[in-house]
């Protein structure tokens, strides 16, 4: 039921223009709803404290000794994400038609109804996972 409602909402949002008041209102309402949900669902249910979480990645040597494959995989992820961020910043700084930014690419992908609806559905799924996913049971 919830999945069907999210799919219908995404399809409806896909038909909106980025300058329209309806698009602004629906995106802001979605953000507000998921932020409230994250707070309401999460009191006392985090897997780790902030201190433990922040210190977690620091001991790379221990991680490498315990799980070398996983550590290398995380390093590959970091390199790929930094490559995307770096190239996007480079393209943005040059402001050239030969150097499209990530925004331009996503703008192209979301220029159609189906494309915007699909990207919105992915964005909504990610937001819902971040707001309510991976909580400790009460």
């Amino acid at each position: 039921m919830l999945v069907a409602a999210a799919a219908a909402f995404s399809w409806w949002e896909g038909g909106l223009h980025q300058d329209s008041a309806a698009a602004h209102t629906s995106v802001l309402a979605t953000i507000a709803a998921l932020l409230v949900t994250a707070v309401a669902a999460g009191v006392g249910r985090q897997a780790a404290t902030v201190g433990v979480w922040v210190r977690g990645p620091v001991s790379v040597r221990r991680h490498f000794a315990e799980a070398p494959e996983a550590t290398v995989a995380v390093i590959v992820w970091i390199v790929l994400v930094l490559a995307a961020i770096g190239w996007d910043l480079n393209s943005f700084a040059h402001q050239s038609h030969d150097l499209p930014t990530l925004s331009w690419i996503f703008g192209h992908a979301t220029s159609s109804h189906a494309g915007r609806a699909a990207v919105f559905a992915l964005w909504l799924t990610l937001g819902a996972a971040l707001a309510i996913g991976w909580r400790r049971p009460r």
Partner: protein
Amino acid sequence: MTPGLGVWIGIGTALLAWTVVSSLSANLPGPIALVRWFAQSWLGRALALCAWAGAGWHLFCQRP
């Protein structure tokens, strides 16, 4: 195709390939593990939600 777009295709292909490889292996953290890592603490969850909200506003309300 512009040179800049070529670089994006390269980065996108590498990301896609690594997503597939890490998803097929039980020992390698995939994209879901990456999101789950941010959701472990309040700070990580808040940072990720802020980035998510900013990206959504930019993509769906300000698209250049």
